[in-house]
């Protein structure tokens, strides 16, 4: 199975690999997937008090398509409001990367990672305010 050029580009030159301080109140962390399934994605978003995503970092254990999906969403979410980021769907990710059917789950994971990171941030903020 050949990979699309975009998958190869994001795999070979992954954007925004790294770690943000998970204890920073403005950082939301999403950890999705499972080692036994062969993919784990951790997406971290630094979100301003106004609810705008200022920075994004990822680390992913998984195949090339999982890594490419992670890299892509870190680029897509930056500068977006939380609400807009929540609207990113796996279909858009799969389309952008031309993922074949067997790799659709990678894009699902990336969508889940965005949602998990934002939920974590919201939970943190609620706890702080509550």
């Amino acid at each position, binding site marked *: 199975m050949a990979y699309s050029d975009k998958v190869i580009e994001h795999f070979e030159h992954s954007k925004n690999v790294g770690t943000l301080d998970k204890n920073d109140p403005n950082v939301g962390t999403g950890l999705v997937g499972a080692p*036994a399934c*062969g993919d784990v994605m951790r997406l971290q978003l630094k979100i301003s008090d106004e609810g705008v995503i200022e920075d994004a970092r990822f680390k992913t*254990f998984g195949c090339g398509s999982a890594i490419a999906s992670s890299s892509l969403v870190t680029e897509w979410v930056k500068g977006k409001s939380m609400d807009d980021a929540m609207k990113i769907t796996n279909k858009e990710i799969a389309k952008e990367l031309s993922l074949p059917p067997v790799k659709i789950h990678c894009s*699902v994971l990336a969508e889940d990672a965005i949602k998990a990171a934002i939920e974590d941030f919201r939970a943190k903020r609620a706890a702080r305010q509550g």
Partner: protein
Amino acid sequence: MVKLPIYMDYHATTPLDPRVLEAMQPYFTDDFGNAASRNHVFGWKAEAAVEKARKQVAALIGASDKEIVFTSGATESNNLAIKGVVEFYKDKGDHIITVATEHKAVLDTCKRLERQRQERIDELKLQRLMELTGEDVNPEDLASLEIKHQLDADPVLKRWVDKLRVGARVTYLTPKKDGLVDLAELEAAITDQTILVSVMLANNEIGVVQPVAEIGALCRKRGVLFHTDAVQGAGKVPFDVETAKADLVSLSAHKMYGPKGMGALYVRRKPRVRVLQQIDGGGHERGMRSGTLNVAGIVGMGAAAELAQQELVAESARLTALRERLWKGLSARLDYLTVNGSMSARLPGNLNVSFAFAEGEALMMAIKDVAVSSGSACTSASLEPSYVLRALGVDEEMAHSSIRFGLGRFSTEAEVDYVIDLMVRAVTKLRDMSPLYEMAKEGIDLKSIEWKAH
């Protein structure tokens, strides 16, 4: 400098040795005769070439040429051996013992035989239910009616099933952690209904070499036929049918520098072993495998077998050294590595390693100029990681992280060194972007986390 891409997947297939190609060439053009043409020189030449190759293949495994049946490959040889024995010896028994790590050509053949038996049993059950109820029974109601009429305690049905001679019952042994068959377990699995034990010589994923001599002796002692799929081991490690007491042996030309689509089945003559042919027709190969012989392919397989036999000792020493070099190079520079399968009972050219925290398909993508293979689910259509590694009890995540290196006749030290460097860079890069590696380094027990599986 090494030439790219590098081929390190010799278990998948091997290139044709140029000497083999040379031996084959005349039989595509000038000497194109049909080996079954008895009345002219074209036929005689083809027949002579086939018989020479038969001797060469027989010699590789210490057999007599009359015991070699040429086939279209080891998939067919395995089918013929197993189905052929089950059908021929059906009055003796219907139980087969094999191992969970066998090649699919063995496992799926066994599964079909099991299914055939089950389908026939279901038919008998329906028939019995019709007798008991006095009316037509819808097959969809079988499950519920079976319970209602207590068929499992029905003596009439039991008598029918006992007399059944269709398909087979199969025991799949789980190998030990190192991939080797437990001989005591094998012995305990043999019943008075057992007609065949099928255990491969060497495994195609983990390269583990089974104790075939002990298995063969056990089978002989218990009066059970012994089939071994020797595709990966023949010509790579010492093997002969007498030492192994093998009754049936599957071989494939393309795993020993011969052509694809070409195989053989050894069928013992003393004491005589029979298989029922699976392909009917002109009665070629003493009736066991009809079809006009693939003369050029057979010549290639013969030449390949002869070369493998001549070079076995030197080549296995060379490959063992290369394999050691590869393993030492990787393990000196990377932590968290595990070798899958026994390191001592192993094909010289095989190394199967799990690179924890890095996923196999991503690794293969990161070393794209090197052809290897992985037990990762992502490389299969099924999304299940390697059933061979799983049968050894390897964790799923470690199966996902496995890479199989297959070294062979044209592998060089320079290639090994290049691959070590590339692997170290790839593994380091992927671990740097792996959340699991970061967590492990922080001392977090990954097993303690509740993963949100999708």
